[in-house]
């Protein structure tokens, strides 16, 4: 080790921070905060997963066996809120914290204290969301929010204290996300290494830049919507009550103005990291960098103007139906650009199939199913049949589990050696991949057919003709849930030790993040690199 790097390493390790729990409470370091986000996300992934396994167990057979419908309704809604706000979004933010400074050659995030605050708002918000379950055990209130995650008025006006807890939780989660977004935008716009123009910036950073802008545009609308709900509940306003001049459908407009971009908020970071993984394991440059950037932007813009396709059965006028149908269909074009670029990146490469690559390929195929079924869902007349049915449930789990969660797992396997300095177990990783893909399809493929056969979503009990597919789906769900324990075990082992990882980690890597040691020094780029 030469003197120069020694000094650098020494300085890097010699961080002036407290130890123990105080280190984590007070840290402003992007890597520490990234680690906390990822850990929190993993924990909540299991919490949300446990909830839905309760639901799937109840749905194993017709009849009510395990729980009352009231409790069933609480589980489905809180499962969604936990998975979206407390698992997928924090995981993506964890990636951003860890990787954006490394990728753009910055020493840390632009606003480190805001960063710390952004994370530490999450645990109380998750606690608020789930606390009504515990309170109900002590006879306080009637449990958590039971309206589904969509909180549709007037059902949510009628609901118990769980709704209030959910509203405040959403407020806090929203503040946290907005702070994270401001930080990411500030970092990306101000702290790129000399020579890294926006168009040269890595695609992961681009995915996140668009995500952050979408969050800042849409979250205040959600916050406003749920605040109106709160005043309808407690202060005699009538925003969503026709008797007082309001309109229940107004809530759906406000909710989905946030809710549809939210889908892309969850997916853009994943779309951003895919080209990195594909290029690495094909040992070939990313295909269509510029085209992908413009696709991200196009999807972001289109995502803001298609929201009403989430309630096409609510009785919108014909011109509105046609507008939302065609605008939704048009999203298939930029999305097709991404698929084209992913496959073109693979074309004539030199591929190897390590775990991240397997997850990336699994992601592309299964997310393809989500995209294609999304295209038919846009069709208003056919949507009348699909809507509110298990077809939609299957569709969005192909988007959010196969697209979101498997995308996140691609990133975790890809970057874990960089973060920890150790290789994970390739054998366990591959086993995890195959178990996940098989059990995922076993869980959700039957749900497409359930939906076509006419099974509505969010019902705790069902008619007999739906029995077989539900049984298969439940078996799949438990296999899927249990397979994820392998993932946690593999990550844990990798954090604790294992074969040392080189700075490049993989053979075909390209980018600033692979020039730093694995793990990187405590302060990333103390001297800015120059990009040519």
């Amino acid at each position, binding site marked *: 080790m030469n003197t120069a790097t020694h000094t650098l390493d020494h300085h890097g390790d010699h961080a002036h921070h407290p130890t123990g729990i105080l280190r984590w409470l007070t840290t402003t370091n992007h890597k520490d905060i990234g680690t906390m986000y990822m850990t929190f996300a993993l924990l909540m992934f299991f919490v949300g997963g446990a909830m839905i396994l309760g639901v799937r167990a109840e749905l194993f057979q017709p009849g009510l066996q395990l729980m009352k419908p009231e409790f069933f309704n609480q589980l489905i809604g809180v499962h969604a809120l936990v998975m979206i706000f407390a698992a997928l979004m924090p995981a993506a933010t964890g990636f951003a914290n860890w990787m954006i400074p490394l990728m753009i050659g910055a020493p840390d995030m632009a606003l480190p204290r805001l960063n710390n605050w952004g994370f530490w708002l999450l645990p109380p918000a998750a606690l608020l969301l789930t606390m009504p379950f515990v309170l109900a055990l002590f006879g306080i209130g009637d449990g958590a929010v039971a309206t589904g995650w969509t909180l549709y008025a007037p059902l949510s006006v009628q609901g118990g204290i769980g709704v209030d807890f959910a509203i405040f939780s959403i407020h806090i989660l929203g503040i946290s996300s907005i702070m994270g977004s401001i930080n990411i935008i500030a970092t990306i716009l101000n702290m790129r290494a000399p020579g890294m123009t926006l168009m040269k910036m890595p695609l992961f950073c681009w995915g996140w830049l668009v995500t952050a802008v979408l969050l800042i545009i849409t979250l205040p609308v959600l916050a406003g919507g749920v605040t109106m709900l709160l005043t309808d509940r407690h202060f005699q306003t009538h925003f969503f009550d026709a008797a007082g001049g309001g309109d229940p459908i107004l809530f759906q407009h406000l909710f989905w103005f946030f809710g549809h971009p939210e889908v892309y908020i969850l997916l853009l970071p994943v779309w951003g990291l895919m080209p990195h993984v594909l290029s690495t394991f094909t040992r070939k440059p990313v295909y269509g960098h510029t085209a992908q950037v413009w696709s991200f932007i196009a999807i972001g813009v289109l995502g803001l103007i298609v929201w009403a396709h989430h309630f096409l059965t609510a009785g919108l006028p014909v011109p509105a139906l046609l507008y939302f149908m065609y605008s939704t269909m048009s999203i298939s074009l930029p999305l097709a650009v991404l698929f084209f670029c992913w496959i073109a990146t693979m074309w004539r490469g030199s591929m190897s199939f390590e775990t991240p690559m397997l997850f990336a390929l699994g992601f592309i195929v299964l997310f393809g199913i989500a995209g294609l079924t999304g295209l*038919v869902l846009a069709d208003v007349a*056919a949507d009348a049949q699909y809507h509110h049915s298990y077809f939609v449930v299957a569709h969005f789990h192909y988007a959010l589990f196969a697209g979101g969660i498997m995308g996140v797992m691609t990133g975790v396997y890809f970057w874990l050696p960089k973060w920890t300095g150790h290789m994970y177990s390739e054998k366990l990783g591959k086993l995890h991949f195959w178990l996940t893909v098989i059990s995922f399809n076993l869980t959700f493929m039957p749900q497409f057919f359930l939906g076509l056969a006419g099974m509505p979503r969010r019902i705790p009990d069902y008619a007999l003709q739906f029995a077989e597919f539900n049984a298969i789906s439940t078996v799949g769900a438990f296999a899927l849930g249990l397979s994820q324990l392998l993932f946690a075990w593999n990550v844990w082992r990798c954090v604790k030790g294992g074969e040392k990882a080189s700075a490049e980690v993989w053979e075909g890597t390209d980018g600033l993040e692979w020039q730093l040691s694995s793990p990187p020094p405590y302060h990333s780029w103390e001297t800015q690199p120059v990009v040519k």
Partner: protein
Amino acid sequence: MTTLNPQPHQPALPFRHRLSLLAGPVLALASGAAFADYTWNFPTPVTPIGRDTLSMHNQFMVIITVLFVVVFAIMIYSMIKHRKSTGARPAKFSGPTGAVQWFWTLVPFAMLLFIDFVLMGIPAFHAVVDMEDTRTKADMVLKVTGLQWKWKYEYPDSGVQFVSTLTTPREQIEGKEAKGEHYLLEVDNEVVLPVGKKVRILLTSTDVIHTWWVPQFGVKRDAIPGFLRETWVRIEEPGVYRGQCAELCGKDHGFMPVVVRAVPEPEYAAWVDKKKAEMSAAAAGGDKTWTMAELLAKGKESYEKNCAACHQPNGQGLPPAFPALAGSKIVTGPLLSPDGKLIPDSHVDRVMNGKTGTAMQAFKATLSDVDIAAIVTYERNSFGNTKGDMIQPAQIKALR
């Protein structure tokens, strides 16, 4: 499939039989003729919209299956050919170069544009316009009102109206009895509609949003409190068609089925006459003076049908959302003011007008004078409540 049994939900196939079908789902998706089985596709449609929707769905499924296969065949070819283990050397290109490459890059997008806005877009356009054309040449109107957790149906032409609730016994749901053939899809009062007539359906709700859905009709429309929404059906084959509420509407969302019986015109007319006669008989019951025993017997029956889902058969409720009636201050409070008027927030007021912001609905909209009088009397003299007083249907009628 033209000879299909009009019964919409055939008994479930044996499990083994279905497993054998698992072998060919892709085949089933790819060939229109194989779409008949309930398990893999929409139940057989019986309305023009339903048929349109099914054929459009089938066509779209073929399109997206072809897209899926083509795209991923290319990908899988690449995964096999361009692997490091077979000695493939990576190319260096990162975008299209030259006119030929640009051409082949743009072709897929031109094709996608065509698929989106011509192949799918044009039939979709016509289907939407047809689906929303509720008023042209409508033969009759059916008004559907969603309530937690039942449906009320009104026929404005004849004045017939009734409430339709689930009849599946609690014991079947809890697994104490074998489940019947139409488990969770059976009701006390079926909606009867004439075959071949265009029925304009108006929808609304008295509490939260519900969604009226019969899969074989191909229509699904939200029932929104305070607003009217509309859709239409023209049922082409006689039969019984079953569906469910499709929008989460609270505790018993899974237990408010829709059952429609489509019959030939003369049979429909006879049914209307029969219903009218039943309604006038019920109205006559409202004018006579009932004894305590009669009210209690009728009250127990009506209570168990309309109130027990929330307040429970033993009157203990499910607090805090659904309060107990046993020992309740409201139930054991005064009945009417000395001059026979309604006391605000009293027992009778609650039952008739509900409580806003809660699941307690205004039952005067759905229950007859007899039902309300009987339920009130029953509640005041059951579950350990011993008020000893009663109210007559005629008194309820005067309060409306």
